[in-house]
């Protein structure tokens, strides 16, 4: 396997233009002769399918939800970054590029990140023209707010529903193409395998979730925009359906998987209330602007009502440990410290599996200082949501929060064209590994999804098709197609007929999630990772032996859907641990306890300034490592410190 990044050379600000100018094109009359499959209909997939359809390609778009409008991009709250410099505070494309490379802890490809920063401004223009109702100032111009990791105000937002509004913009553009007949939309259809013919991605095998029908779909190329793998932890802020099946099937066909251990934990989520918990809900990070984080100093106080704990017995651990940044330390630092205090037995709230995993986020000082009305104006809807879920009013008693998995920076390895190591297989959005390095800054996920979908993929797809011109026709009866279909059918048969069926797939998923969370979560060490690598294969064997699915495969069967996804999480979870074990340094979302200095992450640029891209070898425990070296011509690696 060869990792060729295919980055253009020369001054970084001209690379994308230069690349576009030298790209191959497909003439308008020839585009409809090319079929492009897009899997996923979120910001990246929806935008790519709509744009490719509009250009005249014959697009088939698939999603597992009942409508493309429901992809999980919809749940993004905060906003989207763009280097517009509308606030006249010195922002520029270069600054956004710089912040993103630094925020990613110097583990991303400079050329990609620069392009992302350049395209950010086009995204805002595009979204506004589509009718996305961004927040505005009284003068009618677009409003901005600031977000973590930046000293400028460059985040555009639509109340607390920026993801929803941007997704509806892409969805409506997609609907226009469905109406025009250039996009055929197949909702409630899940990709279960990739069809590779003559070394190129030529189609997918799907299961219709309403009827259970297994069908091959042949195309000239395949684009995967299927999101992240955060649900490997079982509990995460992802939607219940989010899964890694499409990317994992691609990986098993030869697509390298990059940096799987880079996962992001969000510090302010509502804690788990019981073992039945199905997902975690994120509370906007903005709450840390006015809330003070604390736990009791004494273990015997953890079950007391917070109001009854006197001031001197409260441990404001972030303020004490990080006097300069206090409660506003970056996401990873805030998350790790919550883990440390709760593992010391100082956690508060409900006991789940013998542990209290919660810390207080207290607004009483802010309410005394600014008045309840001001706090209501700032956070009213968040407080209401908290009360709906947790049953307490944050106006009267401190919120309880705890970190939760939120985003995965790792994903399919792609080159500058967003092409994977399989020719004809492209990947965009959270599904690929590019742009965010080891850590993603707030309000950058929407930016990357839309940059890939609207502006990068439509070009690079054309470049690929312009290069290959006419592909030999592939018949549905060809052995490469029938073999893929048969493999899918056999896998379903195996899942439905476990030798000693005992438990629903959730039973195993919860156990897997617990292993990954405790041993490959916020804080990792060699011993724990090796333990996880012994436990996961055992649990996987038990899963295949005891998973129980009632009903048949030839109908809507939600248990079967989940079982297939859990099966792939087992293999991906193992790769995560292998990657985390191999990367003997701490960077961004990957914190190895052995590599730290005064509690801060200690990068090792000598040994680890590279992308780890793993190749499938047929044995999930023995993947083959390939390294793409990272070079920094513009932003010189420096140490992150928030003390």
């Amino acid at each position, binding site marked *: 396997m060869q990792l060729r990044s295919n980055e253009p050379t020369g001054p970084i600000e001209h690379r994308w233009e230069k690349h576009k100018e030298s790209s191959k094109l497909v003439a308008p009359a020839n585009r409809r002769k090319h079929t492009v499959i897009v899997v996923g209909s979120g910001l990246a997939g929806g935008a790519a399918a709509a744009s490719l359809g509009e250009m005249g390609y014959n697009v088939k778009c698939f999603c597992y939800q009942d409508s493309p409008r429901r992809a999980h991009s919809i749940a993004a709250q905060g906003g989207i970054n763009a280097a517009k410099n509308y606030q006249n505070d010195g922002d520029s494309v270069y600054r956004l590029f710089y912040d993103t490379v630094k925020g990613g802890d110097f583990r991303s490809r400079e050329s990609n990140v620069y392009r992302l920063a350049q395209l950010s401004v086009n995204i805002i223009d595009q979204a506004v023209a589509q*009718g996305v109702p961004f927040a505005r100032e009284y003068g009618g111009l677009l409003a901005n707010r600031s977000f973590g990791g930046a000293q400028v105000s460059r985040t555009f937002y639509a109340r607390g529903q920026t993801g929803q509004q941007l997704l509806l913009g892409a969805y409506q553009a997609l609907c226009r193409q469905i109406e025009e007949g250039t996009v055929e939309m197949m909702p409630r259809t899940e990709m279960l395998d990739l069809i590779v013919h003559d070394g190129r991605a030529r189609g997918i095998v799907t299961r219709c979730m309403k009827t259970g029908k297994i069908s091959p779909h042949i195309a000239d190329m395949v684009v995967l925009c299927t999101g992240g793998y955060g649900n490997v932890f079982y509990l995460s802020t992802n939607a219940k359906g989010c899964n890694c099946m499409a990317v994992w099937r691609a990986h098993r066909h030869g697509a390298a998987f990059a940096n799987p251990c880079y996962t992001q934990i969000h510090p302010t989520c509502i804690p788990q209330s019981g073992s039945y918990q199905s997902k975690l809900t994120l509370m906007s990070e903005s709450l840390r602007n006015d809330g003070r984080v604390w736990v009791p100093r004494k273990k015997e106080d953890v079950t007391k009502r917070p109001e009854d704990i006197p001031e001197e017995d409260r441990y404001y651990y972030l303020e004490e440990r990080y006097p300069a940044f206090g409660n506003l330390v970056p996401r990873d630092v805030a998350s790790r410290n919550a883990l440390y205090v709760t593992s010391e037995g100082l956690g508060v709230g409900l006991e789940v599996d013998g542990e209290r995993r919660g810390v207080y986020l207290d607004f009483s000082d802010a309410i005394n200082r600014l008045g309840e009305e001001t706090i209501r104006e700032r956070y009213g809807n968040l407080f209401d949501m908290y009360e709906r879920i947790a*049953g307490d009013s944050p106006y009267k008693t401190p919120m309880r929060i705890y970190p939760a998995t939120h985003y995965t920076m790792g994903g399919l390895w792609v080159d500058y064209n967003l092409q994977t190591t399989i020719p004809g297989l492209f990947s965009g959005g959270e599904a690929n590994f590019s742009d965010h390095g080891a850590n993603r800054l707030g309000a950058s996920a929407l930016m990357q999804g839309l940059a890939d979908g609207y502006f990068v993929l439509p070009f690079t797809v054309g470049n690929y098709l312009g290069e290959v011109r006419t592909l030999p026709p592939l018949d549905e009866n060809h052995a490469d197609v029938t073999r893929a279909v048969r493999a899918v059918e056999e896998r379903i048969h195996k899942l439905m007929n476990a030798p000693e069926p005992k438990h629903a797939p959730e039973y195993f998923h919860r156990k897997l999630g617990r292993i990954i969370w405790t041993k490959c979560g916020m804080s990792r060490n060699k011993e724990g990772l090796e333990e996880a690598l012994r436990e996961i294969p055992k649990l996987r064997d038990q899963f295949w032996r005891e998973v129980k699915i009632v009903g048949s495969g030839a109908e809507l069967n939600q248990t079967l859907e989940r079982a297939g996804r859990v099966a792939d999480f087992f293999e991906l979870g193992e790769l995560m641990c292998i990657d985390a074990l191999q990367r003997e340094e701490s960077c961004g979302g990957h914190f190895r306890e052995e590599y730290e200095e005064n509690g801060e992450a200690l990068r090792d640029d000598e040994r680890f300034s590279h992308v780890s891209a793993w190749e499938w070898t047929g044995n999930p425990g023995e993947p083959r490592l390939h390294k793409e070296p990272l070079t920094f011509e513009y932003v010189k690696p420096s140490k992150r410190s928030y003390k």
Partner: protein
Amino acid sequence: MSEELLNLTLHVWRQDGPNDAGRFETHQANGISTHMSFLEMLDVVNEDLIERDKSPIAFDHDCREGICGSCGMVVNGVAHGPQKLTTVCQLHMRQFDDGHEVWLEPWRASGFPVVKDLVVDRSALDRIIQAGGYISIRTGSASEANEMPIAKAIADQAMDAAECIGCGACVAACPNASASLFTAAKISHLSLLPQGQAERQDRARTMVAQMDAEGFGGCTNHGECEAACPKGVSLQWIARMNRELVRSMVRSDSGTKSGRR
């Protein structure tokens, strides 16, 4: 934060497919924590059903934080259940009392055929958007975003209308099974904005025609839709939709939309 455990009797609508007559089935849900969400309560019931070789209850859900619009069922006769402005995924069991009987039904409307149990086919809503619920702007051809100021009051109103999550509760709550609130919210969002003016003449006409073609009823001002809407989308948008519709009928520049419709 105090926890109680509830024992509930569930009467759940079970239906194998669109052509099956369907029936209620009774299940016990015992030891349900008041901290559980409503869907987590169903997860617990389902895991138990699977362990006992019984077919689990099918229901749609995804984000479980009230924004994707996947979930929705009628709980004791009310779309999304008893708590105002709350999708059923964010409804928590502390809203129920020990010993309660709970009746669960799918959205019932001829425009939403039942797929299985509590899962319905809402693709009609997508087809209404496809009929004109968009602004035609080619990717990459947009002009600089701040060239066109939009008064904050107008932008805020457009955002109010755009809050719709497309769950279909409005249809389920309406005695006429009308999709007027859904359709009106999108027509209003786009017609309020300057960007939406070029296609305004035809949008209401084509979208309302599609709504009718899908078998949804008309609006007779019951207001049940607004009461059931988890996002508080206002009835006033239906009045605006009707004005838009009349406008498109009398203006000479309407009826120019090309395409398949």
